[in-house]
């Protein structure tokens, strides 16, 4: 799964730690999400879309594989 999380985060001026605090997860989780090494659970995806005020599909794009 590919994502635009880092772009959205930078646009909003959040640090990784600030976003992690908003989501209630560890900073490592945000790092792994941005690198595409971790596909979030559905509840976490909904939290992300709520934080950024967009749809889940705007954040995550199915990868080629």
């Amino acid at each position, binding site marked *: 799964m590919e994502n635009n999380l880092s772009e959205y985060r930078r646009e909003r001026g959040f640090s990784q730690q600030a976003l992690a605090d908003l989501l209630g*997860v560890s900073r490592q989780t945000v790092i792994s999400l941005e690198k595409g090494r971790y596909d979030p659970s559905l509840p976490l995806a909904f939290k992300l879309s709520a934080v950024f005020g967009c749809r889940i599909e705007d954040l995550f794009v199915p990868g080629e594989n």
Partner: protein
Amino acid sequence: MDSKESVGQSKWGRSRFGGSTALLIILSLLGGLVLCAAMALIWWTFGPEADQQRKMLSGLVFALLMLPAASALCWVFMLDRDTLAGAVRDPESSIEGKWYEKAAFGAFHDLIALCGLGAMALGLLRIDVEPVMLLVGVVLLAAVDVLVRYLVIKKVEG
């Protein structure tokens, strides 16, 4: 993970039943003492005959050795994790939880394979192993397996 202690949070947290951090630590130590006393009593009652002759000493050593672990266990049961500095609100959604799940899943299959092969080897070679030692070995193996797998996954995926 929060880099700073938030309001109402502390390094050792507070009890889910209320009270200060100091109270939680005192209750944990007292709970640990009670648990140790109970275990020492069981040891005195059902322990090996040789130790019956040195009841007081063996019970005291046993209780002292178990006190840190028993107190830590009490602390874990009484702790309100929301009051612990650095604790994330949603650990299930964090990557660390995913790593642990993967490590535990892999270790479970390792244990099945190792216990199966071990049982076959012991049966074929007709080796008698003390059940207590065998169970302790399995528990240690499981713990080390999960730890090693977790660290490897963290290194690769972190």
